[in-house]
């Protein structure tokens, strides 16, 4: 994998999407069905990334109390739910993760 090629294509696609309808104004409208579909992209993609990070350890499903990433992650979900603040969530999750690691050892 060449990271420069990935960034080049990733960047071109991102620019293309930002430019698309500004450029095509009047010639193309987003169908309602697509607008609806786009609504579910963030929750689906982000969860698909987060779940394996929390539930899998060395590729194996692990919901034991030793799984500090899962416990700290669930704590972060609660903090995010209440605070709705990105930085507070990250800080709270990191602190929980450090504290739990001390206890598990």
């Amino acid at each position: 994998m060449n990271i420069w090629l990935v960034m080049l294509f990733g960047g071109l696609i991102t620019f293309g999407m930002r430019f698309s309808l500004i450029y095509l104004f009047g010639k193309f409208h987003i169908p309602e069905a697509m607008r609806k579909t786009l609504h579910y992209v963030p929750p689906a993609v982000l969860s698909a990334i987060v779940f394996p990070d929390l539930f899998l350890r060395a590729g194996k499903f692990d919901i034991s109390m030793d799984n500090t990433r899962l416990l700290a992650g669930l704590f972060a979900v609660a903090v995010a739910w209440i605070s709705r603040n990105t930085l507070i969530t990250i800080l709270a999750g990191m602190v929980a993760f450090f504290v739990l690691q001390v206890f598990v050892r």
Partner: protein
Amino acid sequence: MSEKKKYFWAGARSEIPLLIGVFPFGLIYGALAMDAGLSTAAAQAMSSMVFAGSAQFVTTQLVRDSAPGFVIVLTIAVVNLRHVLYSASLAPALASVSTRWKALLSYLLTDEAYAPTILHYEKEGVKPFSHWFLFGAGAALWVTWQISTALGIFLGAAIPDSWSLDFALPLTFIAMVVPVLKNRPSIVAALSAGCVALAAYSLPYKLGLILAALVGIVLGVLVEGKANVKPEKELSLHANVRDSLDESQ
């Protein structure tokens, strides 16, 4: 002061409350990119080549997992799909500017530049030089993103591995996803995508991620159709951006 300058600085000023949130994000991105094994040059270049926070975090995660290039590019595309909506939303206001301006403003069209700009257009309407507002907002954001990335790279090199800084990545995604879980279809989309990602984790090339995202999106749409739930109008990873703007004005 000329009209252009007036709009430019109004746009830049509108970014100030957002920049307070963006700056630490750039720091975290830079540090995590180093931690994931990207070179200093690549980590910095991504902030101008891709220039999209959440996509850069996702890329960092996938580089760490040694996902193949085409999966990373595909994921960047999916994560950034929402920009098509921003493009649609701002298109009427930018209809009369030159193609060169359209290209420049599109490059700068991030979540954080979109939010204050659309509010500005809603409030003030479209004036001859009001595209300078988006230029000012985008430029302020771009400069802040580059500087904070550089600082993060510098700091990241100094943070020991034993701190497990990589855990900040899933935490970042949690912080982004929880606020968008506002109704049953989006919760179904999130949980189903997560479960499929676990079940399909061993698929080659990280294709489990793409499969999981597709299943989540389809199920979200199906549940919405069934329940006839009205989705939130705001489709943004950074709905909180708009909230914080409202508070600051």
